[in-house]
C-alpha cells in the first residue's frame, strides 16, 4: 500500500510563483491562478495550492484556521479542542466550486479565533507561540484533522490536483490580496493526500518550495529539539519550522535567516566579500546554527505578515526568476509565468544562489493593511 | 648541484644502501641476480657503525679532489661537479684509494680496478640507488 506524507518521505519537483504589491494594493486571486496555469508541465496533478495575504480584512485581528477533516468525528474532537483554547468568532465551511478534476475532498472548515486569555496566561507563552503549539497539537494528536492555515488576515488553499483546478475549486477569484504565492507539485508517487499539498504554513508563515533538500534529516532532527514535530516528512514543513524558529522565536531578521539556511561558502568568506563584522557573524552562524544549513536544491518563496522572501540554495540548483513593475515584485520558477501576470516589466533578473530577495510592504501600507 | 647527504639521526645501520648500491652498479637486472651469479658486487657506499650513531659514507664529490690530482692515468676526472672514473683507463695503482681522506674509493670485485660513487649517473635516471633504497630518509639527494 502506498504511504502518504508523514509515513514516508516523498521527493517532489515543482513550480512556484508569487507576487507582492508594496503599497498594499490588493489583487484578485485569478491573477495568480493564471500565472501557474502556464507552468502546467511542471506539475503532475498531484498537488497544488495558494497562499493569499490580506484576504480577510474584516477578520484581520483573528487567527484564521483552515482545517481538513477526514470525518465528522475528527471535526467534533477538534472543535472541542478549539473551544477549550480559543474564542471562536466565526466558523463556516470554506466555499468551494465542484470541479471534475478535484475529487475525494475532505471536509474543509474555516475558523476565526482569538486565544482564550485565561488559557494563554496559564500557558506562560506568548500569543503566537500558544497558537503555534495548539496547531501542532491538533495535527499531531487528533487523527483525521489537519490545520493547514493558521495566520492572521491570510489563508492557504490547497488540494490534490493541478493548481489551476485547485484555484477554481476554492473560488479564488472571490479573494483579493496584496500578496499571493502558488505551488504546483510533481511528487514521485501518488499519495493523494490533501494535507501533503503545498504551501505549508505555520501562523502567517507560508512556504512554497521547489526542490529536494539533502540536509532534510539533519534539519529535522535538530528542529524537533525545539518543540516542532515534522509530521509530513516534507522539505517544506521543515523549512517553515526553521524559519519560524529563527525569525519568530529568536527574532533573527530575514537577511540573517538567509545567511543561516543558505550560508555563504567558506571560500566566499575568505574572499573578503563581507565586512569583518559580517564575516564574524556568519562564522558564528556556521558554528552555532550549523544544523540549520540547508543543502541540496531548493527555491522557496516565504510569505509572512508583511512581505515575501525568495531564496535559492547556495549553488542555485533550481530555477528562479524575479521581476519588478512599479511597486509590484514578481517571483517565479519561469519567466513565462511572470509575463502572464505582467507582460511589460521594468526589470527582470535571475537572483544568485543564497542571495535572498526580501520585499516588504511600505510603511504606510503596513499601517493601512494591518499586520 | 644536487649531492648525496647523510642524516645520521635517522641512519639505522640496516646496510640496505650498500646492497642497493652494489646491485645498481652490478649491471644485473635485479638484486637476486646481482648477488647470486658469480662474485658478490662491491658497494660504493659503506655504513659506519658506532654505538649510538651510524651513517653511510660515499664519495663527497668534494673540493679537495686529491684523487683526481693523484690519478696517474687521468682515469679520474670531474664532469659537471661529479668525480667520475673512466674504468678503461684505470690501471689499478690505487693512488686514489690511499689519498681519499674519506676512504670512499674502493677496489672492485675483480681486484683490478677501483670503483667509486658517480651518483648513479651511469645507471639510473634520477635519484641514486642508495637514496631510493634508504627506508628512513637517512640518505638524501638534494641541493644544499
Amino acid at each position, binding site marked *: 500500500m502506498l504511504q502518504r506524507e508523514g509515513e514516508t518521505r516523498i521527493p517532489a519537483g515543482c513550480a512556484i510563483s508569487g507576487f507582492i504589491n508594496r503599497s498594499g494594493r490588493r489583487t484578485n486571486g485569478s491573477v495568480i491562478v493564471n500565472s501557474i496555469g502556464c507552468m502546467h508541465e511542471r506539475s503532475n496533478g498531484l498537488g497544488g495550492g495558494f497562499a493569499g495575504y490580506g484576504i480577510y480584512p474584516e477578520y484581520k485581528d483573528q487567527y484564521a484556521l483552515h482545517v481538513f477533516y477526514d470525518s465528522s468525528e475528527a471535526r467534533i474532537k477538534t472543535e472541542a479542542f478549539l473551544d477549550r483554547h480559543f474564542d471562536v468568532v466565526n466558523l463556516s465551511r470554506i466555499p468551494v466550486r465542484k470541479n471534475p478534476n478535484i475529487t475525494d475532498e475532505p471536509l474543509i472548515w474555516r475558523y476565526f479565533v482569538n486565544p482564550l486569555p485565561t488559557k494563554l496566561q496559564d500557558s506562560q507563552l506568548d500569543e503566537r507561540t500558544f497558537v503555534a503549539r495548539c496547531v501542532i497539537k491538533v495535527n499531531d494528536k487528533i487523527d483525521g484533522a489537519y490545520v493547514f492555515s493558521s495566520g492572521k488576515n491570510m489563508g492557504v488553499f490547497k488540494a490534490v490536483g493541478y493548481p489551476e483546478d485547485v484555484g477554481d475549486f476554492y473560488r479564488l477569484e472571490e479573494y483579493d490580496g496584496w500578496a499571493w504565492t502558488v505551488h504546483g507539485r510533481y511528487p514521485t508517487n501518488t499519495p493523494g493526500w490533501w494535507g501533503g499539498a503545498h504551501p505549508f504554513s505555520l501562523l502567517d508563515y507560508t512556504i512554497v518550495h521547489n526542490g529536494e533538500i539533502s540536509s532534510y534529516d539533519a534539519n529535522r532532527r535538530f528542529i524537533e529539539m525545539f518543540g516542532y514535530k515534522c509530521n509530513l516528512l516534507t522539505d517544506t514543513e521543515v523549512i517553515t519550522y526553521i524559519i519560524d524558529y529563527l525569525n519568530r522565536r529568536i527574532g533573527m531578521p530575514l537577511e540573517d535567516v538567509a545567511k543561516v539556511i543558505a550560508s555563504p561558502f567558506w571560500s566566499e568568506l575568505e574572499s573578503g566579500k563581507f565586512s569583518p563584522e559580517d564575516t564574524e557573524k556568519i562564522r558564528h552562524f556556521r*558554528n552555532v*546554527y550549523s544544523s540549520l544549513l540547508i543543502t541540496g536544491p531548493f527555491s522557496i518563496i516565504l510569505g509572512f505578515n508583511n512581505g515575501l522572501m525568495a531564496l535559492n540554495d547556495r549553488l542555485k540548483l533550481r530555477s528562479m526568476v524575479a521581476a519588478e513593475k512599479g511597486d509590484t515584485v514578481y517571483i517565479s520558477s519561469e519567466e513565462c509565468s511572470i509575463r502572464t501576470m505582467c507582460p511589460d516589466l521594468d526589470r527582470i533578473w535571475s537572483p544568485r544562489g543564497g542571495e535572498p530577495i526580501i520585499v516588504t510592504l511600505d510603511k504606510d501600507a503596513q499601517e493601512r493593511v494591518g499586520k | 648541484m644536487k649531492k648525496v647527504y647523510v642524516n645520521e639521526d635517522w641512519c639505522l645501520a640496516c646496510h*640496505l644502501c650498500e646492497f642497493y648500491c652494489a646491485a645498481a652498479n652490478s649491471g644485473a637486472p635485479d638484486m637476486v641476480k646481482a648477488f647470486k651469479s658469480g662474485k658478490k658486487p662491491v658497494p660504493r657506499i659503506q655504513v659506519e657503525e658506532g654505538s649510538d650513531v651510524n651513517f653511510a659514507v660515499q664519495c663527497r664529490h668534494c673540493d679537495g679532489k686529491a684523487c683526481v690530482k693523484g690519478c696517474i692515468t687521468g682515469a679520474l676526472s670531474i664532469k659537471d661537479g661529479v668525480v667520475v672514473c673512466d674504468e678503461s683507463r684505470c690501471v689499478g695503482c690505487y693512488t686514489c684509494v690511499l689519498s681519499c681522506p674519506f676512504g670512499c674509493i674502493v677496489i672492485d670485485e675483480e681486484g683490478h680496478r677501483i670503483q667509486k660513487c658517480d651518483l648513479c649517473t651511469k645507471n639510473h635516471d634520477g635519484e641514486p640507488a642508495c637514496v631510493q633504497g634508504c627506508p628512513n630518509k637517512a640518505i638524501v639527494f638534494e641541493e644544499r
Partner: protein
Amino acid sequence: MAIEFMNPLFEVIRDSDRCIKCRVCERQCANEVHKYDADLDKMISNEMTCVDCQRCVCLCPTHALKIRPNENQFRENANWTHQTMDEVYKQAGSGGVLLSAMGNPKDLPVYWDRILLNASQVTNPPIDPLREPMETKTFLGKKNQGITYDENGKAHYDKTPYLELDVPIMFSAMSFGSISKNAHESLARAATELGTFYNTGEGGLHRDFYKYGANTICQVASGRFGVFKGYLDAGAAIEIKMGQGAKPGIGGHLPGMKINDEISRTRMIPKGTDAISPAPHHDIYSIEDLRQLVISLKEATNWEKPIIVKIAAVHNVAAIASGVARSGADIIAIDGFRGGTGAAPTRIRDNVGIPIELALAAVDSRLRDEGIRNDVSVVVGGSVRSAADVVKAIALGADAVYIATSALLAMGCHLCRSCNTGKCNWGIATQRADLVKRLNPDIAAERLVNLVTAWDHEIKEMMGGMGINSIEALRGNRLMLRGVGLTQKELDILGIQHAGE
C-alpha cells in the same frame, strides 16, 4: 628444561633462492628472530619470538620473506580454540594476568559494514566536488549561546570556546610513553598541517612540542601525569579522560623500564618507577564531582578552552553522556570497544564495552530527546577505519571522529598487537632509542597528512553523491543511511531504516 607447551604462532618462510644474506632482517628484528649462521652461510630463524610485525618482510630487498600463521595445530575443537588453549598454557606458566595491545580482535559485529550510504538520482542532483565547493570544516564546542538583536538590528552574541577543524578527523589520545617521542612529533606536525588536533594522552607534553600547542589537546587522566598550569595552558583544549574503549573501568600501567629520562621529566615522576593511573579519578566518584573538575579546569585556564570529557562506550552510555552534557563540558568523546591501547588485560579488552556505532546512535538520540544536543559536541573513536566509517559516524550524529589505530598504521604499524612488549620494530610503541630512531617524523608526518587528506577527498566524494555540500548537513542525517542484514532492534537503536525501505 621444562616442556614448552606452546608453539610458535608464526612461521618464517625464507626463499633461499631469493635470500642474498644481506642480514637486514637480522638487524631490524628487535625480537631476534633472524640470525646469520656463518658456519652454514645462511640465515636461520627462531620463530618462537616472532610477533608478525612484518618489519623484516617490508625491508627485505629481494622479497625473500613471508610470515605465515604456524600450520601446526592442536586437535580441532570449536569450543577450545588454539588461542584459548594457548592462553591457558601461558597463564599456567606465568601465573599472571594476560596482557594484550591494540583493539578487540574478536569476530563481533562491525556495524559500519552493515550500514550503506545513499546517493542522489533524478529528483535532486549529485554535486561534483571537483567543480563545486565542498565543505568539511567543523566546529566543536557548545552551540547553545543564542543570539539577540537590538532595536537597530545589530546582532549580539557571546562566543564560548570552540575548536575549529578543517577536517572532521582528529588524532586520538596516545601518551608519550605508550608511543615514542618521534610518533608524537609526527602526530603534532601532521595535525598542525591538516588544521586539526592531536591528543597528548595522559603522558604530559614534551617540552619540545609546546610549539604545536594550537593543535594540541591536553589530556588530564586519573594519574594526572605531567599536569601543571603550563601544560593546561599549552593546548587548544583539555580532555578529561574518564575511560578508554579498550579497557573501560580500569586505569593504565606504564612499566618502570619505559620511564626513561625524557618520560620521567615529561610525566613528572621519578625515572624507573611504574606509572600507574588509577581506575577512577579519585576526586570523581560521581557526576557532580566531574562537574567540579570541569569547572576547575575552566577556571584554571581562564574559561578560554573547551573541555572534552572522554568516556568509554558502556551499557548505559546514553545516560552517562546526558550527565556529562549537563556537567558543563563542551565536548563528549566516546570511545568504542574496538579502540586501541598500548596495553590492557586481555579479558577486559575482549569482553568489556559496546560497539561505538550503537553507543553513538544511542547518545545522539538521547541528547536530542532531552533537547541538550546543542550543549555539547560529540566526537567518537574506537575503530574508525576509513572515510566511509567517518561519513557513517557523522550521519549517525557525530560532530567529528577520533582516529588512532588508523594513524598508527599510516606511520608503519602492522597491528602485531605487541605494543606492551616495548619492542616495537616500527619505532612507534617503544622507548628504546635504537628503535625510536626508526620512525622519522619527516616521513611519518607526511604519511599522516596523506591519509587524512585522502579521507577528506573521499568524504567529499560521498557527500557530493548524496547532494550534500557541507559536512554540517550530513551530521545526524540518518536518512542517508540504510542497514543491511540487521535485526529490527539493531535498526531501532541505530535509528535507521533497512535497505529497501
